[in-house]
């Protein structure tokens, strides 16, 4: 399963919701889709889900255009919109049965598909409860089960964790990880960046409809920071250490953070090792010298300007 978005553009009147973005990803990944409100995330997801038609450009799922072959693409994707399911007076199993039938599953195949997703999403105890009797977290699980009932290769999730309590978020995260392990491709938009940091290997960041960054999270972080960040914890003389780091030629943005110093270093591991050796030679007692993994929040704040359309 390969997903490719090519110069995708969508106008709503004079508003350019999406402005020529291109990116791609492959199967077995959880890819985060990040951007401020109004950045064009939902529009992009809706185009991928065949619900909207791009003004220009196209998106391809396994080489097939979503605009030209929407019927075929729909069998390959499971879409979880940002709103909860309706049909409040149907039971969980009836709801899943409806969508299984809507995807053309029949007979034993349908029964097996429903049982599989009920088991996977751990909805067994709730199968005969009506949707209006479920909590938001439970309904989100039902929504995920619905999106999986026809066994799609690509899952598109639009803000799935919004409004969920911490337990429900953790459960959702675990389900998505398991799906990725089973080879599903998951493209997830979310505002909860800490969640995405823990889940996603790759990230696509857009702002005002334009692509700002895309790639593996740590690579994007390195690019956006201009180098790798390190934390240096001395046993004593923190102020002297910060002053030294400020004068070090390949170091930038050296600052004290609690009991340690943070610094961005240009170059590779040799440069980092050279700095450490010099610190020791100068008599600093270094208790810890470690690279910092930049979170999506840091990346997001550094690459976006907070503009909305």
């Amino acid at each position, binding site marked *: 399963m390969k997903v490719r978005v090519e110069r995708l553009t969508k106008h709503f009147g004079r508003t350019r919701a999406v402005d020529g973005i291109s990116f791609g990803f492959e199967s077995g990944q959880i890819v985060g889709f990040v951007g401020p409100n109004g950045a064009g995330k939902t529009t992009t997801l809706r185009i991928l889900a065949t619900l909207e038609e791009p003004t220009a450009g196209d998106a391809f799922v396994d080489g097939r255009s979503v605009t030209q072959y929407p019927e075929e693409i729909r069998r390959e994707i499971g879409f979880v919109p940002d709103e909860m399911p309706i049909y409040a007076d149907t039971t969980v199993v009836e709801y899943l049965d*409806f969508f299984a039938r809507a995807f053309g599953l029949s007979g034993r195949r349908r029964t097996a598909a429903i049982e599989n997703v009920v088991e996977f999403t751990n909805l067994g105890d709730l199968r005969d409860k009506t949707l209006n009797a479920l909590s938001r977290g439970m309904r989100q699980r039902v929504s995920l089960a619905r999106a999986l009932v026809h066994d799609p290769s690509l899952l598109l999730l639009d803000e799935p964790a919004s409004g969920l309590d911490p337990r429900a978020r953790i459960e959702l995260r675990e389900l998505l990880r398991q799906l990725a392990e089973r080879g599903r491709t998951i493209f997830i938009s979310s505002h909860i960046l800490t969640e995405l940091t823990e889940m996603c290997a790759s990230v696509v960041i857009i702002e005002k409809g334009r692509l700002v960054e895309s*790639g593996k999270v740590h690579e994007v972080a390195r690019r956006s920071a201009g180098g790798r960040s390190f934390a240096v914890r001395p046993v004593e003389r923190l102020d002297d250490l910060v002053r030294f780091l400020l004068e070090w030629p390949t170091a930038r943005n050296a600052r004290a953070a609690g009991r340690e110093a943070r610094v961005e270093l240009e170059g590779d591991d040799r440069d980092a090792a050279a700095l450490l050796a010099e610190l020791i030679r100068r008599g600093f007692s270094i208790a810890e010298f470690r690279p910092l993994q930049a979170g999506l929040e840091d990346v997001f704040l550094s690459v976006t300007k907070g503009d909305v359309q």
Partner: protein
Amino acid sequence: MIATLGRRIAAAARAPNPVMLKELRQFVRSRALIGLLLLLLLALVSAIGFYALAEGVNQALGGGPKGDGANLFAILLGILFYGCLLVVPIWCAARFAAERSPTGLDLLHTTALTPGAIVRGKLYAGAVYALFIYGVAAPFLALTYLLRGIDLPTILFYTLASYFVVVLATQGAIFFGALPMSKVFRILVGVIIGLQTLFALPGILIGVLTEGDLGAADAKTWRGLLVALPFGLAAMALLQAAAAALIMPPAANRARPVRTTLAVIWALSGAAALLRGAIASDSDSLAAWLIFSAVAVIGMLLLAVGERTTPGPRIRESLPRHRLRRLLALPFTSGEIGGLLWALAVAALTPIVGLAGTAIVSNGPPRLDQQYLEFLGTLGIMALYVVGYALTVSFIHSRFSKFRWPRRLNGLLAVGLITIVGAVLSILGAVREDATGVPMAQPMNIFVSGQTRFRTQYFAVAGIFAALAVALNLPRLVRQWKAYRSDAPADSASVAPPAPPPLPPARNSGGAPG
């Protein structure tokens, strides 16, 4: 053909419409609907009780003949019919309107269900629900046979006819539920239409079917049914196509179901009108068909100017690649030029088919008399005015971008313009006539197109107005045509162009086990 039909029925039995199943499951769970059903049963039992009591009193007082089954049947059928007409369409429309949220439709549009299947599912559910209610009431209706005065075929006939009206009303309500408008406006319009339907339909039904005689289904009744049934079926087909078009995604060819259905209805009704004209040797049915055709053309013109100017990629992909087939597909393709061409084709074919058909069936020259020719002229003037007004609005919309309103409102604005111009000229005409005693010609006023006194002038003005509007829009329409003609779908559509390098495969998905 029978084998194909059999296979289709078998397939439908194996895989019933999912929307219908869902609706029926929800119905079974609905306490309100079960309560209403019990209420209906109570009303039927009470009606029988009261009727028996009244008859008993009547007999005791030495009144008329013994109880008449036809009277009781009329009462029971009335209760059943009105009860169903109140409950089933409103239930279906309310549910559809509630589910017509963006999320609800989005989820359905990401499945393999077509918009037509969604609308059909809703209709089937309403029909099954109504059938359930009728089934519950059937023993009561059959009981009236034992009281004499009515035979079983008549009971069956009227029960089925009223059931058909309930199903038709349900389809109308589903169309209404599919309209994209606010809840308040929907309720307001729904109440007005609902009340009108509620009071008008039974009268029309009984009038058409019995011509006032409810006792035994005779030849007149069957003739009435023969007239009413095709109208009902045509209305149902059109409402279903329109409802499906309303819930289609914006990228789809929304015009196709409506224009195709309307074209089929237009052709079949034209053939039926000619046939009836030949048999009955009069032009009444042909005149009715001309009115229907004029309404269809005017409606399509107003809708067309609100449509998109270029087909999107999804529509382009669905178009035939063969040049001639592509041209023939244009009137059935979403877009301004397609809608205008559809209207133009029907407007041109209607009088030709009408005149030629009349000549054929009468074995001689066309038999349209002066009255019908004048009538045809009035419809022509009206259509020309609509062309002028609709294209003027479309021209202003395309030319003056500062005053740009949503394109879909063009038809509505054209109606507004027609109404305003008509109202102003009518008032001026009335004032002038009061003052001078001489009627004033009101060119550009569509509502006086039938005035024979100024017919030539009106025809000339409407013709010039329409021609000017077409001339103003011609460059734009030619551009649309060229864009449509040249939009050949890519042969290598399934092969994506060279792409940017994909994101590298995941080595570490955030500490996922295994």
